[in-house]
C-alpha cells in the first residue's frame, strides 16, 4: 500500500473531515435532486428557488469550513490523544522539532482549502444572491471559530488559564469599545491568535504534569470509582476539589462579571423599570444556583448524622466546624438577592453594573471561600454511611 502524500497527512490526520464532506455532499445531492424534481414536476422557475438554494449552499459551506477547522486542530493536539501524548512524553521531543503526527500550526494548504471553499461559494452564490460578502467571509470566520474553540479547550485541559481567560475577554472588550457589528467578525481571529499563543506556551511545558483535567476526570470518574464501593470509596478517594486558588477565583469572577455586564449592556429595553425587576430576578436566581452548585460539592459531608435529633440530643444547636459549610452559600444568596438593588437605588449604579458586580463577587466567594471539600471531608465532624452512588452497579454484602 502506497503511503499517503505529506500534504494529505498534514490536512487530514483522521477521517473526520472526509466524513463531514461526504455527509454534506450527500445532503447537497438530495437537496439538488429535490429542487430538480420541483422544477421538472411543477415547472417552478429557477429564480423562485434561488433563495432556498442560496441558504442551502451557505449552510453547507459554513458547515464544511467549521468541520475543517476541527479536523485541522483536534487530532494533532497531544492533549486529546492519550496514546500519542504518552508516547511523545517518552521521546526527546521539544517544541523546536515538528510534531510527529502533524503540525499544530496552520499551514499554506489550509489557505488553499478555505480559498477553494470561499471561491466555490462565491461563484455559485453570485448567480442567486444579491450580496456576495457573507459568502466571502463566512468560511474563513467559521474556520477561525472552530480553531479558536479547539485550541482554547486544549489550553483549558493543560491549565493554560491566562490564555483561556484572555480569549474569553475578547468579546467583552469588543462590546465595551462599542464597535460596529461587522467588527465582531474579527473576534474569532483575535481569539484564535491568543489561543495559538497559549498552545505554544503550553507546548513549552510538555510533558504536562498531573494537572491535566482530562486525565484526572477520566481516572477518577471511570476507573477507580466503578471498581470499589463502600467503605473504600468513602475513606480513600480524595473528593473532587471545588475551591481553587484566590488568583484563579479572581480571574473567573472578573470574567463572569464582565460577561454579565456586556450581555446586559447589549440588551435594548423599552420599559426600563419593568426590566430592572427581570434582570435582578435573573441575577438572584443565578447567584442562588451558583450557591447550590457549591453546596452540592460538599454534599457527602452534610449528612443525617448531624440532623436535628442529634443536635437536640447533644444540646448542640451549632456545630461550628461543620456548619461553616453553609456560610459561603448563605453569603452568596444574600449578595445575589440584595446587592443589585442597593447598588442601583442607593449608589445610582447602572443596571448592568449593579448586576455584574454581585455576580462577580458571588463567583469569587464560591470558588475561594473555605473550607475546601478535601479539608471538610478529612477533618469535618460528620459521619459517612454505607451507601454508594449507583447501587445498580454494586451489590451489598451483609453480615
Amino acid at each position, binding site marked *: 500500500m502506497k503511503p499517503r502524500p505529506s500534504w494529505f497527512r498534514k490536512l487530514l490526520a483522521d477521517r473526520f473531515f472526509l466524513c463531514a464532506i461526504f455527509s454534506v455532499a450527500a445532503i447537497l445531492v438530495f437537496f439538488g435532486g429535490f429542487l430538480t424534481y420541483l422544477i421538472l414536476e411543477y415547472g417552478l422557475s429557477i429564480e423562485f428557488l434561488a433563495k432556498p438554494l442560496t441558504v442551502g449552499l451557505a449552510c453547507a459551506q459554513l458547515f464544511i469550513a467549521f468541520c475543517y477547522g476541527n479536523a485541522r486542530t483536534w487530532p494533532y493536539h497531544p492533549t486529546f490523544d492519550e496514546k500519542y501524548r504518552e508516547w511523545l512524553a517518552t521521546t526527546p521531543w521539544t517544541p523546536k522539532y515538528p510534531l510527529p503526527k502533524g503540525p499544530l500550526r496552520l499551514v499554506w494548504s489550509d489557505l488553499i482549502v478555505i480559498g477553494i471553499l470561499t471561491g466555490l461559494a462565491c461563484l455559485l452564490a453570485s448567480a442567486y444572491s444579491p450580496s456576495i460578502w457573507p459568502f466571502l467571509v463566512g468560511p474563513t470566520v467559521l474556520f477561525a471559530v472552530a480553531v479558536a474553540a479547539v485550541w482554547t479547550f486544549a489550553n483549558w485541559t493543560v491549565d493554560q488559564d491566562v490564555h483561556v481567560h484572555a480569549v474569553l475577554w475578547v468579546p467583552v472588550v469588543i462590546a465595551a469599545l462599542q464597535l460596529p457589528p461587522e467588527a465582531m467578525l474579527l473576534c474569532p481571529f483575535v481569539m484564535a491568535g491568543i489561543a495559538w499563543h497559549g498552545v505554544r506556551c503550553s507546548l513549552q511545558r510538555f510533558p504536562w504534569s498531573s494537572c491535566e483535567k482530562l486525565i484526572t476526570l477520566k481516572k477518577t470518574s471511570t476507573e*477507580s470509582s*466503578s*471498581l*470499589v*464501593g*463502600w*467503605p*473504600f*470509596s*468513602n*475513606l*480513600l*478517594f*480524595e473528593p473532587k476539589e471545588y475551591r481553587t486558588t484566590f488568583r484563579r477565583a479572581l480571574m473567573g469572577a472578573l470574567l463572569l462579571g464582565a460577561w454579565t455586564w456586556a450581555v446586559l449592556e447589549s440588551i435594548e429595553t423599552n420599559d426600563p423599570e419593568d426590566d430592572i425587576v427581570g434582570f435582578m430576578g435573573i441575577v438572584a436566581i443565578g447567584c442562588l444556583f451558583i450557591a447550590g452548585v457549591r453546596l452540592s460539592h460538599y454534599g457527602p459531608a452534610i449528612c443525617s*448524622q448531624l*440532623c436535628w*435529633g*442529634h443536635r*437536640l*440530643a*447533644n444540646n*448542640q444547636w451549632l456545630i461550628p466546624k461543620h456548619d461553616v459549610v453553609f456560610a459561603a452559600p448563605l453569603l452568596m444568596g444574600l449578595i445575589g438577592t440584595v446587592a443589585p438593588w442597593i447598588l442601583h437605588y442607593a449608589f445610582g449604579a447602572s443596571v448592568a453594573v449593579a448586576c455584574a458586580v454581585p455576580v462577580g463577587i458571588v463567583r469569587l466567594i464560591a470558588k475561594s471561600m473555605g473550607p475546601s471539600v*478535601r*479539608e471538610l471531608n*478529612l*477533618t*469535618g*465532624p*460528620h*459521619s*459517612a*454511611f*454505607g*451507601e*454508594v452512588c449507583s*447501587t*445498580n*452497579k*454494586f*451489590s*451489598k*454484602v*451483609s*453480615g
Partner: protein
Amino acid sequence: MIQVKELTHHYGLRPVLIDVNLQVETGELVVLLGPNGSGKTTLLGCMAGTIWPARGYVEFDGVKRRESADRELELRKRITYLPDNTWLPKQHTGREFLLAVGRLYDIDEFRLFDHSDRLLNLFHLEEKGDASIESYSTGQRKKIALASALITEAPYLLLDEPFSGGLDPAGILAMKSVLKRLAHDENVTVVMTTPVPELVEELAHRVAIIRDGQVADYGSPAEITQQAGKATFEEALQQLLYPEKTDVVAAYFDASEGK
C-alpha cells in the same frame, strides 16, 4: 497502638456509647463482644473514622483521627475497615476488585498480583476469581470482601463480623488461621466483632465486653473467666452479657416441662 478516650455517641436521642475507654496494643487481636445493639459496630465505626463521636476521640499511634487533612489521609492508608455491609462491584471480577483495592493502598503492583492469587487460593476462589461478582454466592461474596481487607496489607484491621454472612467452614478456618498469624507474627493489630464465643477464646488476646454502650469488662479470656468466678469462658460471658438472665435456658426448659 489504638487509644479510645471517653467516647460517647448518640443516634438522635438514643445513647449508643457512653464514656468508652479502651487501649489496644500493637500486634494485639481484640474482640468486641456484646448483645445486639450494644454499640460494637458504632465503636468500630468510630475507630474506622466513618462515625464521628459526639464526644471523645480515637488515636492511632498518638495521631488523633481527623486532626489534620494530611495526617488523616495518611492514617486512612494504614487502617482497613471492613464493615458488615460492604459494597462490591457487580460487573467486575473478584480479582479486578482486589487489585483496585490494593492500588488504593499503594501496594506495589508485582506484590499485588501475587497477593491476589494467594488470597483467591486461600478462600478457594481460584475459578470464581475471574468471573463477575454478580455470579458469586453469598458466602463467596463474603470471602472476596474479606480478601479485599487482607490485600491492603494495612497494619490495622478493623473487622465487623468477619465470620458471619454465609462463610463456609473452610472460609472460617482460613480466616481464623490468617488472623492468628497476622497478629502473632506480622504485628498486625486486629479489632473485630464476632458473636461466636469458641472463636473468641481461641483467637483473642483480649476481649472487650460491651454492654449498654459501656465497657463492662476488658481482659484476656482467662482473666475474664477468673474475674467472673466461672469454670468456662462461655459461662463467664453469659454472666457478663446477661447478668440478670443467667438461668434463661433452664427457665425455658422448666417452663416447657411444667406444661
